């Protein structure tokens, strides 16, 4: 017997711009002990399905068709009170952010015991025993004492374990997990997924796991449903969908996933979602403004050389120096970047990699050390006008495409600002011509110039960011997690674009990412950072094939295994 049936589900969001069909005729089933993955990119409607099953659709969204059956009993037609009784008791939930899914003012014990007693009516003593037992099952050490702690006393991964315990406490038949590991570092993600899978199998619980991450799908699911713009495009066993997908969207999605084991020339077939990423008109760089003054004199040494740089943040300010508490975000880091190469910096959150980038482009002043750019120590420059000479040659692309563009300025003015500031064009007419050419060159088209940033998607905004960075004709480009806020197929497009630009313009790049497979696609050499220190610098292939530092090996081991993914259409770069 099927545990959970979702039949012909249709969900609409009426708005004043017309009705949006978020979920269109979706049918899914979950068996006891089975993990069903729902995968898709943002806006595909996957989270809406989860919310509809537990009866927590956000208004104005409403179900306008179909049924949700739990053990053949319809639950979508029940009243609010009956639905509330099912939530938690028969259907458990795990949300993305473990920080906000626990009440910060109550101890874990209060939250667990209350929920168990409410649903199972065991009485307080029995409920507490069960709570301790659950915490032990989800792998919390010393549960008898830890249960008395508040949520903030647990780390992110431990907190997500508590959330899982909370979801399991009333012995639900189905668990809905919405992006359960997205907020966690990779090292913790692997453990949590393993735990969820084991509990599911042991207790014969059906699980619906909603994610955008093919790594999560590969690791935990038995079957996969692929969503595209509210529709279910393909469903099948995990091995089948990942290894031999039928639908062109699934094929394009899988081909866009960066692989840790191979380096691609380019990502193929990534124009399914946003076709306008195509660069229709390319500039002739031998004559165009953008290609001018590229013939720099050959260098003897590296383009950029960091020597023992240190960045200190004050965590507890005080008037007297010896009373201050400080923390070294970057501690004694040295590396060189040669002209024309792409240098990667990789590390987990808080490892100091972004701080290094911000020191190079003088957003932060290092506490000690030298930053030598073609023989000039940037930390010694005092005058702003002198610094402008180097600023023009060094530009940065930021992580969040939604905050990196001023929403009150037109795209034309955003991209023209650096050209005007550095006086790189003689007339206003020329500035406008350059901006339109740049927009064409990054694949947006000239008509984008008159629009405002909010009219664009995340990927398109990132193209605007790239155009702005190119507008000073830089020699050195810093990319700080340029794709981590983007969907996987958009990420593939942006990575393709960055690769093309780097080759065409002979740019030197510092590429920062937490994502090792992305690093492998982009970089020639890689530095690995851990808590402010550089633990290893190697050529990319050596790093992946033969890591030196123990921490690098650890990071590589934790990468999701994607070797089951289809290799169809991929063009591997031979070295």
């Amino acid at each position: 017997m099927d545990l959970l049936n979702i039949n012909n589900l249709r969900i609409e969001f009426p708005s004043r711009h017309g009705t949006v069909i978020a979920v269109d005729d979706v049918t899914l089933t979950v068996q006891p002990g089975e993990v069903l993955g729902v995968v898709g990119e943002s806006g595909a409607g996957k989270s809406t399905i989860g919310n509809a099953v537990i009866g927590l659709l956000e208004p104005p969204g409403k179900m306008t068709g179909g049924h949700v059956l739990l053990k053949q009993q319809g639950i979508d037609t029940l009243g609010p009170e009956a639905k509330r009784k099912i939530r938690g008791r028969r259907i458990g939930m795990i949300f993305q952010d473990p920080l906000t899914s626990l009440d910060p003012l109550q101890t874990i014990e209060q939250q667990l015991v209350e929920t168990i007693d409410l649903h199972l009516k065991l009485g307080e003593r029995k409920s507490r025993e069960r709570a301790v037992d659950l915490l032990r099952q989800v792998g919390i050490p010393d549960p008898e004492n830890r249960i008395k702690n508040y949520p903030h006393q647990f780390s992110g991964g431990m907190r997500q374990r508590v959330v899982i315990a909370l979801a399991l406490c009333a012995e639900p038949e189905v668990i809905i997990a919405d992006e359960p590991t997205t907020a966690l570092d990779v090292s913790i993600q692997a453990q949590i997924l393993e735990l969820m899978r084991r509990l599911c199998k042991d207790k014969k619980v059906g699980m619906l796991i909603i994610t955008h991450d093919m790594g999560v799908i590969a690791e935990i699911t038995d079957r996969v449903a692929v969503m595209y713009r509210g529709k279910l495009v393909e469903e099948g066993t995990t091995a089948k969908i990942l290894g031999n997908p039928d639908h062109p969207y699934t094929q394009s999605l899988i081909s866009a996933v960066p692989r840790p084991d191979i380096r691609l020339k380019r990502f193929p077939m990534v124009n399914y979602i946003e076709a306008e990423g195509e660069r229709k008109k390319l500039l002739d760089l031998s004559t165009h403004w953008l290609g001018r003054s590229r013939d720099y004199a050959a260098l003897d040494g590296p383009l950029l050389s960091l020597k023992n740089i240190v960045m200190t943040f004050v965590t507890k300010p005080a008037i007297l120096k010896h009373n201050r508490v400080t923390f070294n975000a970057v501690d004694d880091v040295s590396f060189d970047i040669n002209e024309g190469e792409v240098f990667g910096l990789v590390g987990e959150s808080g490892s100091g990699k972004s701080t290094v980038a911000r020191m190079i482009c003088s957003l932060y002043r290092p506490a000690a050390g030298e930053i030598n750019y073609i023989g000039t120590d940037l930390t010694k420059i005092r005058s702003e006008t002198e610094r402008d000479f180097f600023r023009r040659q060094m530009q940065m692309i930021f992580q969040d495409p939604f905050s990196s563009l001023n929403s009150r300025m037109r795209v034309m003015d955003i991209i023209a600002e650096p050209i005007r500031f550095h006086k790189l064009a003689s007339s206003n007419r020329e500035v406008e011509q350059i901006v339109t050419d740049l927009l064409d060159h990054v694949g947006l088209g000239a008509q984008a110039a008159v629009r405002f940033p909010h009219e664009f998607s995340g990927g398109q905004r990132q193209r605007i960011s790239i155009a702005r960075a190119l507008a000073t004709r830089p020699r050195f480009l810093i990319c700080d997690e340029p794709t981590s806020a983007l969907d996987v197929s958009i990420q593939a497009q942006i990575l393709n674009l960055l690769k093309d630009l780097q080759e065409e313009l002979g740019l030197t790049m510092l590429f920062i990412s937490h994502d090792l497979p992305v690093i492998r696609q982009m970089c020639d050499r890689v530095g690995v950072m851990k808590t402010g220190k550089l633990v290893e610098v190697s050529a990319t292939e050596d790093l992946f094939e033969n890591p030196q530092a123990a921490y690098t090996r650890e990071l590589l081991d934790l990468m999701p295994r994607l070797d089951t993914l289809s290799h169809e259409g991929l063009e591997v770069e031979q070295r």
Partner: protein
Amino acid sequence: MEQSLERTRLQRIFGSDIWYSFTHNPTAIFSAIVTVGMILAAIFAPWIAPHDPFDLATISIMDGNLPPAWSAGGDMNFLLGTDDQGRGILSTILYGARISLLVGFSSVIFSMVVGITLGLVSGYVGGRTDALIMRIADIQLSFPAILIALLVDGVARGLIPSEMHSEISIYVLIFAIGISGWVQYARTVRGSTLVEKNKEYVQAARVIGIRPFTILRRHILPNVMGPVMVIATIHLAIAIITEATLSFLGVGVPPTTPSLGTLIRIGNEYLFSGDWWITIFPGITLVVLVLAVNLLGDWMRDALNPKLR
């Protein structure tokens, strides 16, 4: 698609969510009509008002204390009656609203300029500058605004020779009310600036090399103006009330150029002798004006704050 890209400014306004929220909120429409109506009436007072209350040639003490036209002894020439000097109440209200609105708007603009500037500097520069500006703001906040205005007004009167009082008293009033209200703007703008300056578009501008002054003016200022406009609308109502209060207390504008507050004070002396109209009509005008502006401010706050929707 091609045509819709180059939308004019007007099309963008009428297509915006703000405009939609406005046209679907009867309270907002009503209060906007009342506010705009009163502002227009005040601006065009010399053409609308049946009499010029400041032209000594046309007013006559013989018409003093006439009741409204519809009650016994009323005169059709003076629809809402007259005051002790024979000035028509309707005309004086129209001219009085002019003074009230002038002082209200000017002092709000004064507060905004001071508050936004200090808020931007405080938030962006940080450190000791920030601490200094915000401590001054804290100290000022511990006094009631009306007390600050009274104090400034009193000091100014002491410093300025008495023969110039009537000419410049309105500027003193604007300065006094303006200086008592900058703190709110400074605090709000400082808070938004702290958020905005860490956003990546500001960092991108710094990477380009744009100087702090230009960053503040071109990038941060337009992005912190939303909440400022809400405060400004609500502050306009408060400024009008403060002006009326000061005038009622006799330290505002001189009686020769009466504002709504002055009128209420003049009428107050006659209230117990039964001449109610001198104080009630300016009073009602003041209440309606302030209420309309306040409702407009409330709507704007809700419309601009997505969390309240």
